[in-house]
């Protein structure tokens, strides 16, 4: 089981601090820390820390987009501190599945993501941060979103939440809507057989669900503060 530090202050001061080189366990996440509503009077922000991967998300809008769609909102994702080419479209696709876009016709929702530190699994952290920031902004969504990255190691065993230094044969990131049982994002890299793919997907979904209590606790903590 992953554990949460969701009540603690954001440790911005020790961003550069090296984490201890624990032997990665195949069945648990690195320590995670989630927080929403970081800035007192501006709704729509979230911070996600998974191991030493740290992502900050801020949502602007919905605001008017005079050239926008008549039926649904447009989503814009702005990354900073990260080469986003590989994951931006995945993130937009996932957010399109999450947000009830038809309620915000001719509007633009901007998600600003700042990757403060990258130690692998930026997409899973970004998916979690963006979805929680959207929820904090009060934008209507279908469900919360939980995401998980798994790696297929050269010896064909599966590892959850690999960091950057892990030698992997392939990696797979999945985002799901746990209540509706829907997958909203799959991003895979490397080579694996169809069989391995199916196994990795099932494994990733089962691990992503493990984050649901933590997301839930994080959101509740905001309502009770």
């Amino acid at each position: 089981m992953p554990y949460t530090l969701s009540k603690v202050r954001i440790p911005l001061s020790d961003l550069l601090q090296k984490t201890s080189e624990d032997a990665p366990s195949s069945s648990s996440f690195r320590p995670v820390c989630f927080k929403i509503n970081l800035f007192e009077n501006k709704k729509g922000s979230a911070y996600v820390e998974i191991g030493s991967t740290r992502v900050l998300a801020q949502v602007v809008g919905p605001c008017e987009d005079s050239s926008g769609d008549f039926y649904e909102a447009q989503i814009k994702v702005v990354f900073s501190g990260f080469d986003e080419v590989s994951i931006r479209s995945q993130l937009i696709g996932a957010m399109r599945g999450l947000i009830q876009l038809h309620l915000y016709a001719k509007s633009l929702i901007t998600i600003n993501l700042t990757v403060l530190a990258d130690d692998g699994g930026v997409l899973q952290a970004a998916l979690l941060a963006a979805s929680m920031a959207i929820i904090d902004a009060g934008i209507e969504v279908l469900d919360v979103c939980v995401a998980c990255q798994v790696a297929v190691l050269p010896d064909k065993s599966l590892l959850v939440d690999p960091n950057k230094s892990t030698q992997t044969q392939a990696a797979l990131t999945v985002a799901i809507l746990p209540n509706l049982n829907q997958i909203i994002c799959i991003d895979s890299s490397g080579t694996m057989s169809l069989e391995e793919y199916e196994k990795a997907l099932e494994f990733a979904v089962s691990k992503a669900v493990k984050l649901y209590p933590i997301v839930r606790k994080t959101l509740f903590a905001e309502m009770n503060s």
Partner: protein
Amino acid sequence: MTSMETDVASSSRVVIPGESLFPSAEDLRPGKGTYELHGHIYSSLLGYVYVREDTTDSRNIRVIEVRRNEERHQHVSPHIGAIVTAKVINIGPRYAKCQLLSVEDTILGGDYTALLRKEDIRSTERDKIEISECVLPGDILLARVISFGDTVTSFLISTAEEQLGVVMATGETGEKMMTKDWNTVQGVETGRVETRKIAKVPNLNLHSTTKAK
């Protein structure tokens, strides 16, 4: 519109998006902050669950809502048919540009602008309308959203209904104006009379005149 609605139960139950609130039923309706799917009403916001009694059609319907805080919802974008409160920013020969302040009873979070075209100001004698005789910058209007506009323009709003039009006016000199009759407003300080397309909201206008005395 739904004047028979009353707040009944405002529970302290906190829900997160995606939580199943109630199974669908004949007398349950998903309200703001919720949606209905596969025979269940789900929450779509983080907030408290409210159950509101709605007896509009002499049937007892309970409306389920989820609100982040007690007072109001945030982030509703304008939709066609909605009554909006708008402030006139500037006027031109063909249209008045307005900023939308709220949609029905919800204050807007984001910035939205809308155009009030000349021919949408009133429903009679459309060809004789002069914009400056109907609205002036600074006026607060009640209007209805009639269109999302085309690909380059913003929302289009209309005041071509009796109960829509100017509800608070600012005179050419910047002073506060009170409604005199259905077509004119009078300055509080100078007594100058200007013309407007006044919203015929009996209660609201009555209230504002009594307040001025």
